[in-house]
């Protein structure tokens, strides 16, 4: 028996809060035996500085096309994968989700690999930026290419 074809079900840059339950329901199918959900959330501390919130900006048209390309490449590598990816832009509070990747498969290894591959590639390739808002009132764009102290 051959694995079912992989499918990218949904890729989007959004401004509304990410609804993880709704995204989980999108990947459901009778052949699914494992669903891996990755959520990136805004934390209250970075590099020892208290953070009050995070602002995300995207080059939206390219961000969507790069996300789609990453999802397509991941599906080409992992047969039978069902994928959903959303990244939020705008100003987010502590604890809110900035990104969601849902990968479903018949088996757990492929589901978890799929979710990990997408988020790792997203962080390398997708033109999205974040500016931390600190409790002190300062704001700073994060640059992952700078060595963290």
């Amino acid at each position, binding site marked *: 028996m051959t694995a079912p074809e992989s499918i990218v079900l949904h890729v989007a840059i959004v401004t509304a809060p990410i609804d993880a339950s709704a995204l989980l329901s999108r990947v459901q199918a009778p052949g699914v035996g494992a669903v891996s959900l990755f959520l990136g959330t805004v934390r209250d501390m970075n590099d020892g500085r208290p953070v009050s919130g995070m602002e995300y900006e995207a*080059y939206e048209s*390219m961000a969507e096309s790069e996300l789609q390309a990453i999802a397509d490449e991941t599906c080409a590598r992992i047969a039978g994968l069902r994928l959903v990816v959303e990244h939020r832009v705008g100003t987010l509070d502590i604890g809110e989700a900035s*990104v969601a990747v849902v990968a479903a498969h018949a088996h757990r290894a492929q589901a978890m690999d799929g979710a990990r591959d997408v988020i790792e590639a997203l*962080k390398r*390739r997708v*033109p*999205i*930026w*974040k500016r931390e808002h600190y409790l002190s009132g300062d704001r700073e764009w994060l640059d992952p290419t700078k060595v963290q102290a």
Partner: protein
Amino acid sequence: MSIPVLLFASYADVFGARRLDVPLDAPCQVADLVRVIRSMPGGDRLPAAPLVALNRTWVREDAAVQVGDEIALIPPVAGG
């Protein structure tokens, strides 16, 4: 003639604008654009070889820029 270049995030802050009209004639190369942009006020705060997207695709500095292309200078990405 000039070539419009899109700016985002920290690079938009550097120039106080989301778009630059770079005084150059197309066709030229991405490297020519970058050189002129880095000579503009504040441009020395950009890296020598910033990431560049041409028509929403990553390109190298020897890529050719044609009239009507969408060019963007891309700060280090930080999604997730």
